[in-house]
């Protein structure tokens, strides 16, 4: 489902003496449907960078990243947008939303973008918010005013609203209490069970052991860190 072949990435900092920083070099691996793979490695190893490259958020200079057959390294923006809408979900560590939009609509948005009728999308959003223990009285408020943990859960609810065949999870259980952590892990297990291919970053080792089928040490591909 997700396949990386000889993927490399450099940052060129034009405004800082044109410094060229090689961050990822020659990564290849694949994730099958129903499989969950953890990216591991020390801080700065490039886990998040690699994840962002797979999402198309960072430009990849060399190699191929195929998701459901589409090579996002060589795709038009509109194809990547379509991929993100239909196929590829991403739960980042940060919630980025239009201010003042109610939480319920924020969570329903990915379904609305797919053309799901408003009431149906809101039903699904309500169910997820309930499951993640966001009190109903907050649903009509914008999540921008929420606590960090609440924002994280809204972000997860939004990421799981649509049943994406491929998912990227960046620290989905960070800053969650035991009960909510359990909910998130079961959401991941459900997604695997329905055949989603998942790549995740988990500092939470117990969580990683529980949901991930294998680990890939990104440090191996990081020039200057591999040694």
């Amino acid at each position, binding site marked *: 489902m997700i396949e990386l072949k000889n993927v490399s990435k450099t*940052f*060129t*900092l*034009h*405004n800082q003496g044109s410094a060229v920083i090689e961050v990822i070099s020659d990564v290849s691996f694949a994730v099958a449907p129903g499989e969950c793979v953890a990216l591991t490695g020390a801080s700065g190893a490039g886990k998040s960078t690699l994840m*962002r490259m797979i999402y*198309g*958020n*960072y*430009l990849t200079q060399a190699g191929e990243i195929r998701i459901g057959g589409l090579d996002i390294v060589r795709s038009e*923006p*509109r194809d*990547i*947008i379509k991929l993100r809408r239909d196929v590829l979900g991403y739960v980042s560590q940060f919630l*980025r939303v*239009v*201010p*003042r*939009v109610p939480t319920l609509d924020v969570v329903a948005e990915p379904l*609305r*973008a797919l053309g799901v009728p408003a009431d149906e999308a809101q039903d699904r959003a309500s169910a997820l918010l309930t499951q993640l223990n966001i009190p109903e009285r907050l649903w009509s408020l914008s999540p921008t005013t929420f606590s960090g943990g609440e924002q994280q859960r809204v972000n997860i609810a939004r990421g799981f609203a649509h049943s994406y065949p491929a998912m990227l999870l960046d620290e989905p259980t960070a800053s969650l209490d035991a009960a909510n952590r359990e909910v998130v892990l079961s959401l991941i297990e459900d997604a695997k069970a329905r055949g989603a291919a998942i790549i995740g970053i988990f500092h939470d080792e117990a969580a990683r052991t529980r949901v991930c089928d294998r680990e890939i040490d990104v440090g191996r591909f990081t020039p200057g860190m591999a040694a």
Partner: protein
Amino acid sequence: MTPLLSVQGITKRYGPHIGCADVSFDLYPGEVMGIVGESGSGKSTLLNCMAGHLTPDAGQVVFDTRTDGPRDTITMSEPERRMLGRTDWAFVHQHARDGLRMGVSAGGNVGERLMAVGERHYGDIRDKATDWLGRVEIDASRVDDRPTTFSGGMQQRLQIARNLVTGPRLVFMDEPTGGLDVSVQARLLDLLRGLVRDMGLSAIIVTHDLAVVRLLADRLMVMKLGRVVEAGLTDQVLDDPQHAYSQLLVSSVLQV
């Protein structure tokens, strides 16, 4: 799939100065493209060339018309182009006063495009106008008030209603949130997002506000001195800019 708008080699000079040079891109149905750059980068010149307000010195602006398929709007006759301007195209000005008739009621402002395409039933026109005021969150009781009595944010929303009432397929926006309070901007952005999604609109948004394009645009073009220096997926250009100027632009934004 046929692009809704295909821009090829648009160049506009002001005497020896370059307004914009050799700009080309395709815009597909449902896509929202942002054009960013500092003042004088040529983004407004480009927008006005595309919307038929300026005649470029070179290039084509091919629009996929409903009846005849792709047509170059630069070379089509003026009546045809103006007809597009009040049916399939919409133009949202930065200053609502430029896009509204300030001496005409809110309902009349919204109804004008309907009357321009031949609607002749007062009751229907008024109902549609009232419905559109609701969609842009203006209370129906204001339908007979002149825009001079509206706040800046309301005027801008009225301008949007006036533009969208005939169900256009392509909307040109010139700094649509410029000059509005931050709180009003957010509301307008949310409204625009909803309309773009629900109506399947394509849009080209010129702005210097990177937050606006991040929230509204699927794609981004960065312009400098009349030329496109970088183009791509909005979040990719903003989070991983490749060109020196884009990097400078992104890193110059104050973090809140």
